């Protein structure tokens, strides 16, 4: 093993079992105290946070522990006249929150409670001439938004309302030497952006634009000796990449290129056995 390579250490006393009950508690408790510092200070991310929380609860089989009626009310309160969703009351709508809102509605099977037509209109309005998407009326373009747009309308069964081929071609223009993708043409490959681009191409039927072997290899090389995955070369592992990297590999039919057991060991070690929840790497918050 080489010395000095950026990687995390797994402490001796790290958890080795999945502490599912603790995670259920962690999410359930989160938000119960509206004056909790971290919770309150991240209100501008509320809609996204709510999606991740609900999604996790659903996967763990405990979605019933979330208060469905107040979630629905929250969604309704956050949709504005132009069809987009705010992250929380008072803040401005954005494509990021709009996807999260639609995803939450799908989890709770309550799409009829939101203005679907409004969402379609809002998302359509953000597509540019070249096929990319702005995050909001202020014009920032990024493939995170391309994915938000196509995933959103795909969930609503309205993908054909967008210039789908143009969106795929924009993603194609972001292809890099290593087979990966970045946020815009010319931007460096990054596992999170790779997920958004591969996801976009999968949803729009253009996966053949990807060199699956080249990209699959680059993604497989995100796995470090600790078993954890980083987001790009020579960076520290972060448990969030277990999602971005693995989901991308799964879409590319190459998930077996990651050492499953080693990754599991890393992920289990990221758990906090006091509070529940996961840290980005063992020993962190």
């Amino acid at each position, binding site marked *: 093993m*080489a010395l000095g*390579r950026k990687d995390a250490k797994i402490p001796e006393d790290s958890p080795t079992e999945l502490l599912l009950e603790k995670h259920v508690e962690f999410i359930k408790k989160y938000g119960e105290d509206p*004056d909790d*510092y*971290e919770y*309150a*200070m991240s209100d*501008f991310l509320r809609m996204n946070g709510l999606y991740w929380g609900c999604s996790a609860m659903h996967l763990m089989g405990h979605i019933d522990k979330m208060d469905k009626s107040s979630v629905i009310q929250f969604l309704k309160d956050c949709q504005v006249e132009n069809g987009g969703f705010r992250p929380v009351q*008072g*803040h*401005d709508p*954005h494509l990021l929150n709009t996807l999260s809102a639609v995803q939450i509605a799908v989890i709770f099977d309550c799409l009829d409670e939101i203005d679907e037509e409004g969402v379609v209109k809002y998302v359509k309005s953000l597509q540019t001439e070249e096929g990319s998407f702005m995050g*909001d009326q*202020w*014009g*920032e373009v*990024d493939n995170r938004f391309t994915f938000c747009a196509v995933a959103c309308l795909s969930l609503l069964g309205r993908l054909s309302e967008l210039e789908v081929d143009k969106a795929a071609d924009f993603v194609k223009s972001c292809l*890099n*030497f*290593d087979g990966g993708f*970045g*946020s*815009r043409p*010319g*931007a*460096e*490959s*990054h596992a999170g952006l790779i997920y958004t681009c591969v996801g976009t191409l999968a949803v729009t*039927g*253009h996966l*053949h634009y990807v060199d699956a*072997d*080249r990209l*699959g*290899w*680059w993604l*497989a*090389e995100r*796995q470090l000796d600790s*078993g954890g995955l980083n987001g*790009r*070369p*020579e*960076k520290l592992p*972060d448990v*969030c990449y277990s999602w971005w990297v693995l989901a991308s590999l799964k879409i590319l*039919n*190459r998930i*077996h*290129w*990651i*050492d499953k057991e*080693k990754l599991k060991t890393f992920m289990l070690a990221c758990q*906090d056995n006091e509070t529940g929840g996961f*840290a*980005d790497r063992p*020993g*962190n*918050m």
Partner: protein
Amino acid sequence: MHGRVKVKTTEQQEKERKIERTAKLKAYRQAMSTILSRRDEGHKDATQLKATAQVLQSNPDITTLWNIRKEVLLDIFKSDESASEKDTILAKELELTQSCLMVNPKSYGAWYHRTWSLQQMVNPNWNKELALCDRYLKLDERNFHCWDYRKWVASQAKVSCQNELEFTMEKIGENFSNYSAWHYRSKLLPILYPGHSAQTIQEDKVHSELDLVQNAAFTDPEDSSAWFYHTWLLGKEEERVKIVFCALQSDTLTLSLTKPVQNSQIVLKLHGEAKESIWTGVDDRFDSLWVTRISRPSEGKIQVSLEDQEVTLSLEKDKEESLVKGDGWKSLTNRFVNPPNQKTKEVLKQALENCSQLLELEPDSKWTLYTKALILLALESQTNHQEVLSCLEKLKMLDTARANYYSDVKNRLESEYLIEREEWTLLGEKYSESNVAYHRQYILPAAFRNAL
């Protein structure tokens, strides 16, 4: 909440922290409430600018606050401000974004607001922006926000690609492990030294880059940055799509292509007349293997074309089956890897020699071994086949995390070897072993395997 260490605190420390945080939260809520209600009341003034600036300094990721600033500024610009006033006002935005970036150099909101502000300016100072990029890249040479921003500034300021190429050389010189710099290089070279097709580089430039990257890779063989760039340089050019074969069996016509195409692009002609046809593949729109049903005539010609490719099947009475090969047929003389010319061969042989020497010093260097295999493949895929396979077997043991990857590479290479040698039976057996379905479009239908 990435990168925050969990630290054990005493009860006293906890108490103090709680008091501090309660106060901070109160101040934050108060500030936000005032800003948002004043906005609702229609105020677009200096007070809003001051208030949002204060919150943004410690919370640069609150998009709505940046939006409010943009609204206020656009409102101010509506009244007849002379050009210099506008730029003076916007200079404050640059100051603000700069101080926000010191708190969070990766804040999307701060970088975008800076971009937006410069777009509004009448006379932006691009040199100042390039200098800012220099500073931030010195702090973190992998900050992709800063690299992206630099590329945008360079395009606005009409900085030459040559200049930018030199900049990447500087960064690589400071630290060979600068993946971001290698990446930028990969974008600039095809513009400055274009090859025959899109995104390729002139051959002699490929050779000099190989030399450069080998120096980098050998300085620290465990660092992946230079090795990734190295494999890209060894890669083959993308070819235009070609027809592999077209086969007729009874009333079923099969078209095989080197790459996926849209079925709508395929043109079918019977006796010279275009015929509407429905092609089915595994995918609805894009596939490399398409099948259609035809009511077949007993004699005559069937033509299938795609872009500039065309193949013709001559039908004969009593002959149920017929096959024609296209330009994409892969036999010994038309391989999966384009055979190198003399000069490239020399360069590759030198690179191979370098790798072999490094492996003597560092026999466990997986990057060196994998690159050696790729060079062997680029030189002579048929002759070096066994040696490449044994490198991959060794890699499965050296780099166990990626054992399945190396297995699949082996499978793919074995398929290609058999396809080139037209060993159809062995190929059929190999195909069923593989995890990933490679080259299914090259697998000849059983009826034709012995005939050829």
